[in-house]
């Protein structure tokens, strides 16, 4: 009979309408600014630079090797290497970035900089409410804006942050052992 198909369809909409008051599965709207759905741990938005300890300058892990700058597909990273050196987490003197800029109006959040970084110096942030009044200077993040404490990384990404800490600690320990071994061997040579 003509019209039955339409009536069947109406029954579906009625079921959805009534169900939206009782059924969890049909009740999917999240009233965004007031309530928020939790972000998954893997969520990524724009990169930031985690630093160890208190001082953003001393604790920055970046050694200005410029790998991320080279690999970044839209080329939104700009790095200038320093003239002097500062000790890194293993106590080894390393260069540091004099300038580290990321233009987040160009960045496409692909995470390739994080993957290629050999020093765990760049990670993905989860902050997404970044609207600004001006689109050139305010969306160009400087080193000071990008540097965030390691505790912040622990807060947004606990599993990966713990892994990274363990890895860095192991590397530092191995380096210290090697140093001690060479120090012990050196007098014997003389």
């Amino acid at each position: 009979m003509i019209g039955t198909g339409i009536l069947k369809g109406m029954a579906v909409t009625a079921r959805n309408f009534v169900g939206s008051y009782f059924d969890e599965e049909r009740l999917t709207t999240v009233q965004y600014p007031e309530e928020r759905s939790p972000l998954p741990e893997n969520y990524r938005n724009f990169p930031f630079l985690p630093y160890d300890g208190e001082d953003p300058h001393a604790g920055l892990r970046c050694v200005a090797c410029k790998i991320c700058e080279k690999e970044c597909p839209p080329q939104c990273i700009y790095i200038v290497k320093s003239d002097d050196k500062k000790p890194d987490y293993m106590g080894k003197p390393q260069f540091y970035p004099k300038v580290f800029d990321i233009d987040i109006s160009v960045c496409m959040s692909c995470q390739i900089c994080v993957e290629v970084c050999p020093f765990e110096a760049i990670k993905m942030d989860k902050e997404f409410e970044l609207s600004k009044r001006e689109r050139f200077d305010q969306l160009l993040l400087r080193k000071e804006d990008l540097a965030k404490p390691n505790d912040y990384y622990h807060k947004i990404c606990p599993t990966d942050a713990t892994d990274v800490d363990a890895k860095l600690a192991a590397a530092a320990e191995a380096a210290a052992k090697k140093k001690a071994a060479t120090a012990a061997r050196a007098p014997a040579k003389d």
Partner: protein
Amino acid sequence: MSTTVETLEAMERPPVTMGSRLEGELLEVSMGPQHPSTHGVFRMNVALEGEIVRRLKPVFGYLHRNHEKIGENTSYLGSMPYTDRLDYFCSMTNNWAYALSVEKLAGIEVPERAEYLRIILAELTRLQNHASLLGFLLNDMGAWGTPLMYAFREREKILDLFESLSGSRMMCDYMRFGGCRCDTPPGWMEQAKKIVDRFPRFIDELEQLVVGNEVVIGRTQNVGVLSPELAINAGITGPMLRACGVNYDIRKVDGYGFYPRFKFRVPLGDHGDTYDRLMIRVLEMPESLSILQQAFAQIKPGPIVNPKVKLRAFRPPVGEAYGRIEGPKGELGFYLISDGGPNPYRYRVRPPSFINLTVLEDLCLGHTVADVMVILGSIDIVMGEVDR
């Protein structure tokens, strides 16, 4: 904005299907590029006789982003996030097609778990693509919002899965040469199973909502009939080709990935009209669900990426390769020529949407303007892929 073109008598006319013939001149109407039902920035110059389409000229290129040239100037890895932006509804299958052609080029093997994960992700992509396509198609037919919102509710669940796996809902950038970027987070597989188990409920509801609906049948049956001969000659692939009754599914024909290990049927249409194109998507969804169930049963823990593949300074040997997969919209292929350097010498995309769109005029001639929107909707285009 309208201009007049030459008289009717000068043109060869197909038989008129609706209304009485108007003696006079053709009216040329420009639809788009900001028309709400052209699925993006797509423009059609339609010559009308009354309400009947007599000529249709598609105009595209509004979203051209120089994708292929960018691909020739970035490293092989650097092109991976750009492939997400081709067909932004199905970034996972785009990633897979590109990874597959690079793996062919460099002779890379993929670990078993990664292959299974790729199949799971590709079938989830197919589910959400078909669901949202049906929603958009019904939207074009005048069922404003309701089916689209139901489809998007289901799509959202799958996108949440993608987000918790790869970090992004649509621009996943998840696959890498020789595997995938990271393993699944704890609880992901259970969540995916739950969603797949609940999905048939949505398919049933959608079938009840649209399949028997008299308006849908009236608007789609015998509208935009595509003959199998024309479909094959024009290089049409995917659900649109199978709706004409041609049994051609690259999952079966090529057997890429682990698809030969799976048992699934390929639904075929009969008439090649818009209704068949709609139904073929409804019928493909349960097959995808069955592939997913088999994949969940077979997947085992293991390495996710081939450790021999270098991430940085990746240089495949000199040669060329064409990798193709059955994307949700059709055959998606990447053709790469390597001269041994860090970036491809030639990088070419075979976009299914673009090639399926080429028969639009043949489908629309003799139908009304309102049918043009429905036919365009049933082709399933995404302008990001058409214009690249």
